[in-house]
C-alpha cells in the first residue's frame, strides 16, 4: 500500500510535476479550442453535402464519412504526420493534429447533424420558403435551430469524446517512430508530465500519462 502511494500519489513529485502538468493542460485546452470548432463547422458542411440534391455528391459523402469513421483516429494522425512527408507535405505537429482531427470529428459530427436535419419535417422547409425566406435563411433560422436542439445530447457527448481523443496528440509530439521521446514540438499533457521526473508515477495519477520510454 505504501509502495502504491509512493509510486502513484507522491506529493513531493506531484508538487514538482504540477507546473508541467498545468502547461500540458493549457496545451490540451488549446487543442480543444482548435479542434472542436473546426469539427463542428466541418461536420455541418459534411451534413449539408450529404443531404445535397445531387445523387453523386450524396453517395460521395457516404463514402467519405464512412471512410473516416472506419479508420482509427490514431492511424489517421500517424498517416498525416509521418506518411505525408514522403509525398513532400510536411506538417507541424499541431497542424497535423488539426488536419487529422478535422477529418475524423467532422465525419462524426456530420452524421449527428444529418440525423438532426432528417428529424425536421419537410413541411418546415416548405412553410419557411413559401413565406419568402431564401434557402439559406430557412436553413439558418428555421431548420438548423430545431435540428440542433434535437441532437444536442449527441453533440455534447461527441464533444466529450473529442476532448478525450486529444490525448493521442501526444504520439506525434515526438520524432517519427520514436514515440514519447523526450524532445518534440508538441508539449501535451502526458508528455510534459513524463519529462518532468525520473521514474515516479505520481504525475500519472495527476495527469494520467506515459512514464518512461517505450522507444
Amino acid at each position, binding site marked *: 500500500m505504501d509502495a502504491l502511494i509512493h509510486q502513484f500519489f507522491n506529493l513531493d513529485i506531484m508538487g514538482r510535476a504540477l507546473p508541467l502538468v498545468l502547461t500540458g493542460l493549457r496545451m490540451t485546452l488549446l487543442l480543444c479550442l482548435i479542434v472542436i470548432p473546426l469539427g463542428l463547422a466541418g461536420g455541418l458542411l459534411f451534413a449539408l453535402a450529404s443531404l445535397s440534391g445531387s445523387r453523386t455528391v450524396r453517395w460521395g459523402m457516404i463514402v467519405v464519412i464512412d471512410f473516416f469513421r472506419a479508420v482509427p483516429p490514431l492511424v489517421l494522425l*500517424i498517416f498525416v504526420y509521418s506518411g505525408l512527408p514522403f509525398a513532400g507535405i510536411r506538417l507541424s505537429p499541431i497542424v497535423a493534429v488539426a488536419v487529422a482531427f478535422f477529418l475524423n470529428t467532422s465525419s462524426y459530427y456530420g452524421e449527428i447533424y444529418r440525423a438532426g436535419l432528417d428529424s425536421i419535417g419537410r413541411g418546415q422547409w416548405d412553410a419557411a420558403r413559401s413565406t419568402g425566406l431564401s434557402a439559406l435563411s430557412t436553413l439558418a433560422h428555421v431548420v438548423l435551430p430545431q435540428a440542433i436542439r434535437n441532437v444536442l445530447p449527441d453533440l455534447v457527448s461527441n464533444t466529450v469524446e473529442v476532448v478525450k481523443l486529444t490525448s493521442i496528440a501526444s504520439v506525434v509530439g515526438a520524432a517519427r517512430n520514436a514515440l514519447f521521446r523526450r524532445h518534440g514540438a508538441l508539449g501535451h499533457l502526458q508528455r510534459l508530465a513524463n519529462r518532468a521526473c525520473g521514474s515516479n508515477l505520481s504525475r500519472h495519477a495527476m495527469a*494520467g500519462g506515459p512514464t518512461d520510454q*517505450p522507444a
Partner: protein
Amino acid sequence: MNAFLDTFFKPNLIAQYLPSILKGVLTTIEIAFAVVITGLALGLLLAVVRSFQIKPLNALIVVFVDMFRALPPLVIVLIVYFGLPNVGVSIPSFAVLWLVLSLVLASFAEEIFWAGILSVPKGQWEAARSTGFTFLGTLGNIVLPQAVRLTVPPITNRTVAITKNTALGTVIGVPEILNQATTAQSFSGNATPLMMGALAYIILFIPVVAFGRYLETRFAWRRS
C-alpha cells in the same frame, strides 16, 4: 503520378510487407474479439448487479464506470503498462490492451444496458412478479430481452469505437496493424506500409460501419 505511386503504393514493398501487415490484421482481430466478448459480458453483468439496488455496490459500480468513461483509453493503457510494474505487477502488452479496452467497453456497456433496463416500464416488472416469477426470472425472461433489443444501436456504435482503439496498442508495442505498419515504414523509409495499414483498417471496419448505418435506420425512432 509515378512519384506518388512510388511513395504510397510501391509494388515490391507491398509484396515484402504484406505478410507482416497480415499478421497485424490477425492480432487486431484477436484482440477485438476478446475485447468485445469480455467487455459486453462484464457490462451486462454489472448492469444486472446494479438492478439489485444494493446501495454500496451501486456506488462502487458508478465510480468505476464513471472513471473509465472519463479517462482517455490511451491514458489508462499507459498507466497500466508503465505504472503497475513499479509496484510489482507486470502484465504483457497484449493482455494490458485487452484488459483496458474490455474495462472501458464494459463501463460504457453497463451504462447503456442500465438505461435499457430502466426504460422497461415498471408495470412489466409488477405483472411478471405477480404471476410468480422470481426477481431473476423477471429480469432474465421479461426485462432484459426488451432492454437489450432497445440498446442494439448504441451498443454497436460504442463497440465499433472501442475496437478501433486496438490501434492504441502500438504505443506499448502490441504487434497489431498500426505497429506492423509503422515498423515497416521506418525500415523501408517509404509510406507504402502505412498506406497498407490504413487500407487494412478500412477493409476490416467498413463492413462494421455500414452495418451500424443499417441498424440505425432499422431501429430508427418513428418521428411524427
